[in-house]
């Protein structure tokens, strides 16, 4: 009877041990699974931030290139600067392999990714840069490919007329500045008017007044003395990103 009990206890011990092992294995498996899910989410966040950083720096490069080209720099500056950026990314010690390539836009408006249209269209001027990017990240957890475009555009529109008082003409202009199609602020506005074929700057002697409405719209008024029936005006504007743009209007 005693031996029977001992044998019985030994069997119970094995069952209890087997159960304990099963619970341990299952709980460990669940814990590891949850942790691996968390790790994947974290790595995805890191990859997302890396892609955002890449887009940010490519956008900054396009802005810098347009600022340079709009101030008399070569149009090829965009390609040169983007190559410098790519070179910097290649020097990084990122986990996995990151391939970034670009093409600058060439079409009827853009040459080498740059479009400067100043005075070709009445009352409107535009400075724009456009580049397409292709990104491929081959990481340990996942492979990501993405294509994106960066378009930086500063545009300005002019509306205006003059009222006459003898030889003196009071010119009223409405100037609107846009960045990527949205109203934007100008850093500075310089105006010129044409008299007898000569472009003259508008300054305080012309009673120049510029009212900034804070929403990208500027009301400008000044006086000029001219015998001409029309007053050609040229507005030269730098936006807050140092991108230069020019627009011309003929006031009647």
């Amino acid at each position, binding site marked *: 009877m005693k031996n029977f009990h001992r044998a019985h206890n030994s069997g119970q011990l094995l069952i209890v041990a087997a159960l304990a*092992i099963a619970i341990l294995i299952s709980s460990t498996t669940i814990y590891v699974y949850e*942790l691996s899910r968390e790790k994947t989410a974290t790595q995805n966040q890191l990859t997302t931030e890396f892609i955002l*950083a890449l887009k*940010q720096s490519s956008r900054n490069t396009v802005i*810098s*290139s347009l*600022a340079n080209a709009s101030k008399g720099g070569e149009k090829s500056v965009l390609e040169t600067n983007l190559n*410098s950026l790519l070179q*910097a990314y290649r*020097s990084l010690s990122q986990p996995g392999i990151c391939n970034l390539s670009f093409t600058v836009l060439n079409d009827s408006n853009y040459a080498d990714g740059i479009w400067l249209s100043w005075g070709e269209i009445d009352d409107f001027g535009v400075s724009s840069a456009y580049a397409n990017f292709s990104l491929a990240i081959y990481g340990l957890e996942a492979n990501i490919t993405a294509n994106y475009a960066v378009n930086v555009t500063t545009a300005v529109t002019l509306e205006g007329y003059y009222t006459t008082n003898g030889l003196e003409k009071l010119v009223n202009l409405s100037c609107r500045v846009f960045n990527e199609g949205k109203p934007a602020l100008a850093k500075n506005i310089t105006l010129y008017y044409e008299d007898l074929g000569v472009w003259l700057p508008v300054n305080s002697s012309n009673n120049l007044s510029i009212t900034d409405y804070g929403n990208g719209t500027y009301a400008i008024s000044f006086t000029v003395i001219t015998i001409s029936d029309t007053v050609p005006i040229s507005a030269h504007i730098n936006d807050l990103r140092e991108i230069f743009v020019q627009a011309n209007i003929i006031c009647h």
Partner: protein
Amino acid sequence: MKAHNKGQIRIVEAFLSGLIIFSAFAISANLTITQNSVKNDDLAAVGLQALVMLDSDGSLAKYIEDENWNGLRDALNLLLPTSVCFNLTIYDENMQQVNMDTISNGGFSSQQIAFVEYVCASQGVTFRVYIVHLLLAVVT
């Protein structure tokens, strides 16, 4: 014969116990490493996010070009969680160190350290590229 069987069962039980304890140790050690890796990736993501935010309007490059290291430190202090300390080093495209002053908000006394490498492109008329090395640690 029964005593012989009993001895064998004891050996099997002892072997199983040893195996269970060893497995528990092995798995625990492995899990600890994974957890640290997760936290470091988290910290790196936070650091990268702060740099992206600072660079979104070109401020990062402006601080660097103006050599305004105090301003840069204050800006990072605002963007990073209070429990995180950092050390920032800036290099130009030829990997020459740009900042001669230390850009940091305190000492590193944590085992949880993350490293972030960031390419900062300037928005200015003269294009410049900087490589930013950001070391982050959780204050313990």
